[in-house]
């Protein structure tokens, strides 16, 4: 078992680097591809593949920040941090943005390890208590977020919420193989990528020196982010972007660097929290853990081993991501930014066409219109998460 976990961990780490660096590739799709490709062998080596899935999930979570920063191709988890990260990139501080993201993830993961045992006992109690009102929380959350908008923009935000919810209901009613791919790629991916055509064709020269970190402030925002991220596991449909807004509101953080660190900690807290939730609640909150649950009987020993593996992968991953960022930046700098964006657009369209056929392209197009509308009207893109929140709330309420 030990050797299988180590080998699975190494394989997953390397696969996570590849899938994370591939722009627009969500971990749910990446894990589906891994499981499909390994289908004939997967039940022969359950420990190996369990370690591979968890390791790939954590590694992907670390490395997908790089295309978010340098190409502006975020997934839902990074939607809140991509703007400050992109602003730092345009100031020549893209590597710094990656560094803050890595440090935020490490602080968030360390906190999750420290609180893992009390959290394991707390989750079932909180889950039991939350069941009565979970549907109301999910349906009220997007409307409560409208109050954060300026008065003149609230009606537009409401329209975005209602249209995103309609798009979510329609998408899930079709029963596509991978409904989140066209939905989230349109709302959060393509709409940002199209914006790249209006910026300069070249990335400005980047500073390679790492800054001195203000550890106290970063520890506070990352710890709050990690705890809020881990609590996501109680509320299906609430994504890291909503948790990030709650974290930014709770800590009142304004500095771009700290926003990046806190969003990264939310994402890491959510990943580690989902591993604990798999054991404590018996519920898988993301695709890699759904595959793991189908593969093997989840024991507390296995979860402890996977948590340990996770923190090792994260530690190595955070060092690698900081070293890889300048290298990735040098490669990107050699290409015309618009050509690169066009290539990523083509890749995303191909993936959507492959997984969901023409109906996926229609969903992608509607999502892109909504994403651009939010961007142009300068209304928060988190409102678009109503596409998941309201359909999930209706499941609990009706």
């Amino acid at each position, binding site marked *: 078992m030990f050797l299988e976990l180590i080998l699975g961990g190494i394989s997953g780490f390397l696969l996570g680097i590849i899938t994370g660096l591939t722009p627009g590739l969500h971990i749910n799709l990446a894990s589906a591809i891994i499981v499909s490709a390994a289908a004939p062998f997967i039940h022969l080596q359950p420990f190996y593949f369990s370690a591979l899935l968890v390791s790939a999930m954590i590694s992907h979570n670390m490395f997908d920040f790089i295309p978010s920063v340098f190409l502006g191709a975020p997934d839902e988890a990074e939607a809140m941090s991509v703007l400050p990260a992109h602003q730092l990139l345009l100031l020549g501080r893209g590597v710094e943005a990656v560094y803050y993201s890595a440090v935020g993830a490490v602080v968030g993961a360390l906190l999750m390890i420290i609180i893992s045992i009390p959290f394991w006992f707390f989750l079932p109690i909180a889950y039991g208590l939350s069941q009565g009102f979970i549907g109301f929380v999910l349906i009220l959350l997007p409307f409560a977020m409208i109050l954060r908008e300026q008065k003149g923009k609230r009606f537009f935000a409401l329209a975005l919420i209602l*249209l995103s919810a309609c798009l979510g209901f329609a998408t899930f009613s079709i029963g*596509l193989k991978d409904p989140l791919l066209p939905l989230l790629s349109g709302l959060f991916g393509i709409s940002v990528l199209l914006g790249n055509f209006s910026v300069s064709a070249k990335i400005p020269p980047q500073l390679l020196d790492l800054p001195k970190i203000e550890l106290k402030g970063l520890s506070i925002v990352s710890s709050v982010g990690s705890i809020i991220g881990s609590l996501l596991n109680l509320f299906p449909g609430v994504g890291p972007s909503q948790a990030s807004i709650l974290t930014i509101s709770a800590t009142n953080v304004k500095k771009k660097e700290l926003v990046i660190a806190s969003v990264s900690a939310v994402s890491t807290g959510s990943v580690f929290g989902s591993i604990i939730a798999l054991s404590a609640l018996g519920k898988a909150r993301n695709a890699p853990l759904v595959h793991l649950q189908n593969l093997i009987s989840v024991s507390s020993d296995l979860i402890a081993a996977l948590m340990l593996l996770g923190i090792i992968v994260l530690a190595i991953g955070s060092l690698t991501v900081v070293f890889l960022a300048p290298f990735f930046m040098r490669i990107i700098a050699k290409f015309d930014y618009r050509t690169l964006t066009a290539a990523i657009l083509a890749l995303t369209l191909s993936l959507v066409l492959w997984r969901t056929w023409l109906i996926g392209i229609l969903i992608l197009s509607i999502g892109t219109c*909504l994403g651009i*509308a939010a961007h142009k009207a300068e209304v928060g893109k988190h409102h678009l998460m109503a596409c998941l929140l309201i359909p999930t709330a209706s499941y609990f309420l009706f």
Partner: protein
Amino acid sequence: MEPESFAHICLGMAIIGLLALYVVITFYHPKEVEVEELYEKDAEERVRLKGTVVDIIQKNKTSIIVLGHYRTADVIFFTDGKISLSKGQEIRVDGRVQEYRGKKELVADEISLVSNVP
């Protein structure tokens, strides 16, 4: 063009797209599969399954309809009343694939009778 005007145009296009999507969904039928093919489908995928009823198990508000010959598949149907099907009938089921204890099954949204004759 003013960004706000552009935003409103995008919103209008999204509304038109949504209307088109609802029209497509109305006429959209999932891919028809045989019992053997169900095991190759991904969980959550929507399919149309055609097969012969070989057994019906009624449990409170849940009916389990077993379809197939050599290889069988369970169709789960939630209903308040008793299901009016019998063994030997050929039926068509629209539903969503789910994996339960490592086995693929179909949660039915709609069941229609194809033939009474086995």
